[in-house]
């Protein structure tokens, strides 16, 4: 049963009008582009917010920003980047575009639900953006939204902003669930002839496992969101403890709620969320490295199992975000062990990427440059994770700039580098034109070196003890304000440069759409199915009259005895021998 046919042909009527083709479209490729454009748009909003924050930190005299606005910018930046940009882009964008093409399906299995998913996503973004315009502005509770502070006076947006934030998250979760059901079901049920699970590209594996994590972890955010919404609107006490209100001079009506319960729920979602972003990035970067190093991915089966093991373990490490939260301190022993264990499969992935380079024939194309930069950045972020995962080392560092530097390296910059690499790689398939190489290289160097110069020194502010989420540091002798201030100013300058350089990327995307070099169907000489469509960009239904038949895995580069250095998945064993016993069962 593991191959696709034209089950959905009734829904696959070629759309004719502009509206049905680009607006109410059920085509996975159009939906992917809709998802991506919305995500990139909110991502730019979040980028501007981060520039404002950096100005306040680096050059407080130069920007008119009070602490309310600072905390609002901080909160919205974090929330947008993690949820509305990265999650949506990897699953809704890349997942939608690549899964059906890579497994040889004509579309997602539930195209209508898929369309609903993107519209719910848009709605969630609109609700989120609406919070900028309500009285009191958006919530400034920090992206973790910890109660009781998130819904009490003294936090920006405690009246309306937080309510819109929670409603937006709930809508987003519905959207992500509808999309997620599509991705997993398509992978399991709509693969073409010969496409076994262990012949799938690692991109599909990464997105597949990440989607399962999303389906099981997002409910935790949903649960905590609903309960907080009730606490703030009708006055229940799920999370709200007995507490005193200085402005009313009395205790509030809440009793007995548990703020730590919220933290457990939040991080039960929040940690898998890291891997919901990271696993697709792992998958995509594996494919980029293999294609551009012209070498079969090293240790494919281990790579798949590493993805699965990381996915499973990610559900038992959440409390490493809570070592100093006041939870039972004995939990620290357990979570330190599980957290450091997860480093083993992760390290294996890094080794295998490097061993794929070994004895390859490396083309330093723009996608490859971004992939190699990802390895460096992810390596730094991963290694600093070993500081924060090891409970006692975390105690001095938690809630300092070390944490900020760590998570920006590991789940900010690293996945974004993969996003860029992947867009440079697949843009020719999506548009039929190459992105401009020179602009791409300039964009790459500024982004890679710039972000390294931002976040590597930032760890040392953490060693110094500089706490995160501070609007200003005047008068704290301990963090040596003068020298720290000069480093902060330097970081701000780099951040502004990197931020502005993203205009190069946007320009390249638009310019190349009209003026780019025509790419042909398979410009990188890659083996996986998406490069083998009869038309580029692929038409509705992807494959023309008949579906492709798969004979081999997606990584046959440099097969001995083959005429070309790459052997597409559809090439039969009679033409080029199949070596699957070497790497598969």
């Amino acid at each position: 049963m593991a191959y696709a046919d034209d089950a959905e042909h009734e829904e696959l009527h070629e759309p004719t009008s502009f509206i049905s083709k680009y607006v109410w479209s059920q085509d996975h490729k159009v939906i992917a582009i809709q998802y991506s454009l919305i995500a990139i748009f909110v991502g730019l909003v979040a980028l501007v917010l981060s520039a404002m924050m950096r100005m306040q930190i680096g050059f407080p005299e130069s920007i008119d920003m009070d602490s309310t606005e600072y905390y609002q910018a901080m909160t919205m930046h974090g929330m947008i980047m993690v949820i509305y940009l990265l999650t949506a882009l990897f699953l809704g964008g890349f997942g939608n575009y690549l899964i059906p093409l890579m497994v040889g399906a004509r579309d997602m299995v539930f195209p209508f639900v898929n369309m609903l998913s993107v519209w719910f996503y848009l709605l969630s973004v609109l609700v989120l953006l609406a919070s900028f315009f309500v009285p009191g502005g958006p919530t400034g509770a920090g992206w973790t939204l910890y109660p009781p502070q998130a819904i009490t006076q003294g936090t920006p947006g405690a009246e309306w902003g937080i309510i819109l934030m929670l409603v937006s998250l709930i809508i987003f979760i519905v959207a992500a669930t509808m999309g997620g059901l599509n991705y997993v079901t398509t992978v399991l049920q709509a693969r073409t002839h010969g496409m076994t699970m262990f012949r799938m590209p690692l991109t599909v594996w990464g997105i597949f496992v990440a989607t399962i994590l999303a389906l099981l972890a997002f409910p935790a955010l949903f649960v905590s969101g609903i309960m907080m919404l009730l606490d703030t609107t009708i006055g229940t006490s799920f999370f709200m403890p007995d507490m005193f209100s200085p402005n009313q001079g009395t205790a509030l009506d809440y009793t007995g709620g548990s703020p730590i319960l919220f933290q457990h729920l939040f991080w039960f979602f929040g940690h898998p969320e890291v891997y919901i972003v990271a696993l697709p990035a792992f998958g995509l970067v594996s494919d980029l490295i293999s294609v551009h190093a012209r070498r079969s991915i090293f240790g494919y089966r281990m790579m798949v199992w590493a993805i699965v093991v990381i996915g499973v373990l990610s559900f038992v490490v959440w409390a490493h975000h809570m070592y100093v939260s006041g939870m039972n301190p004995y939990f620290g022993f357990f979570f330190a062990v599980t957290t450091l264990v997860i480093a083993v499969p992760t390290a294996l992935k890094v080794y295998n990427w490097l061993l794929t380079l070994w004895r390859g024939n490396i083309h330093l194309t723009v996608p490859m440059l971004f992939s190699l930069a990802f390895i460096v950045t992810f390596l730094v972020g991963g290694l600093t994770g070993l500081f924060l995962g090891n409970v006692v080392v975390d105690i001095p560092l938690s809630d300092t700039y070390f944490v900020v530097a760590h998570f920006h390296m590991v789940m900010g910059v690293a996945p974004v580098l993969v996003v860029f690499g992947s867009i440079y790689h697949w843009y020719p398939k999506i548009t039929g034109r190459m992105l401009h190489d020179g602009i791409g290289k300039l964009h790459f160097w500024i982004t890679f070196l710039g972000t390294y110069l931002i976040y590597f020194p930032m760890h040392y502010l953490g060693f110094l003890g500089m706490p995160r989420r501070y609007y200003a540091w005047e008068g704290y002798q301990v963090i040596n304000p003068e020298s720290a201030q000069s480093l902060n100013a330097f970081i701000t300058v780099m951040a502004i440069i990197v931020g502005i350089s993203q205009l190069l990327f946007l320009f390249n995307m638009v310019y190349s759409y009209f003026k780019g070099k025509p790419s042909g169907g398979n410009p990188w000489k890659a083996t996986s199915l998406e490069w083998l469509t009869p038309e580029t960009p692929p038409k509705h239904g992807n494959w023309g009259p008949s579906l492709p038949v798969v004979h081999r895995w997606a990584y046959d580069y440099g097969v001995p005895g083959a005429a070309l250095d790459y052997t597409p998945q559809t090439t039969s064993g009679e033409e080029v021998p199949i070596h699957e016993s070497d790497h598969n069962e």
Partner: protein
Amino acid sequence: MAFAVILVAIVIISVLFHFLSPWQATPLASNWGSIDTTITITLVITGIFFVAIVLFMAYCVYKYQVIPGRRSEYKPENKKLEWWLISITTLAICGLLAPGLVVYNDFVHVPPNAVEFEAVGEQWRWSYRLPGDDKKFGRTSVRLMDDRNSFGIDPDDKAGQDDILVAGNQMHLLVNQPTKVLLRSKDVLHDFYVPEFRAKMDLVPGQVTYFWFTPTVPGTFDILCAEYCGIGHYNMRGQVVVDKAQDYEEWLSQQITFADVLTGGTVEGLVEQGQRLAASRGCLACHSIDGGPSLGPGWLNLSGSEESLIDGSKVLVDADYLIESIVDPAVKLVAGYPPVMVAYEFSDEQLDSLVAYIDSLSSDDLSQPSTQPTED
């Protein structure tokens, strides 16, 4: 080639930066040198992996750069190599974890000779309590908190009578004395963090958390709130003063107990009442009284001066204006300060006392123009 060179440069610069950077941990002032040791171990092990991996990558990029017509090796798997790598990584992980867990075991076990004190956090200031002679803290509840009993101690609990209350932001500790900090929050999450002590822990409303340390160096240290607690988070200042025995005893002898608070203070002037209110209701968290920077307008020489509002107009600071700004702060917003203050509820008598207190902070020549002193 260029890329390989840059990778090598990244390694060299990163390592040099580590050794030459002026931004290193603050000098240790507690027993937690062992935590610093675990950080060093982690730095060494992760540093070796960082250098080795990036250099290997640079070598690959240099050695296997594209040569037209060359075929890469077709060797998709090497089980033995992979197991070797897994084993080495696992060993390194154990090298990180084992010392970490040993030190953490010390961290969670409070030594029996530790003395206790309580740090109470609220938006956005600190206060402290010592258990007194009976070494027992009195019961507390937020429902008992008012401007006379800002700690919320149960007056009926005998253990609470001799509790020593420290209302300022500054706490004194005895050097070389193992100390257990009990942490209690009146409103939202906070975190008690003194960088020189290395250890930190959140304050969680509704429960009491703790950690322990031994201060080893006399001196004054800043307490930083390390858990986001609202718009004044960055300004939640406190200090720990580590004293030698004699200084500590002297300080201790000057402190008042809960019983003193309950019995004394019934007869107090308007200004004193206002001062007490300003402290207990958190006004001073945002309004400085010494002319220093603060979230809201400072109170030193405020009364009688002219304030510029955000609409460009000016207003004379008199009693009516002050009262209006307390009970309905959104009406007249002073330029240069964020509109963050929420409306406060006070009785008329309390308002008068606050105004009297603010007036008392102005020097005479300035307060003269305020022609109409409060008469309601």
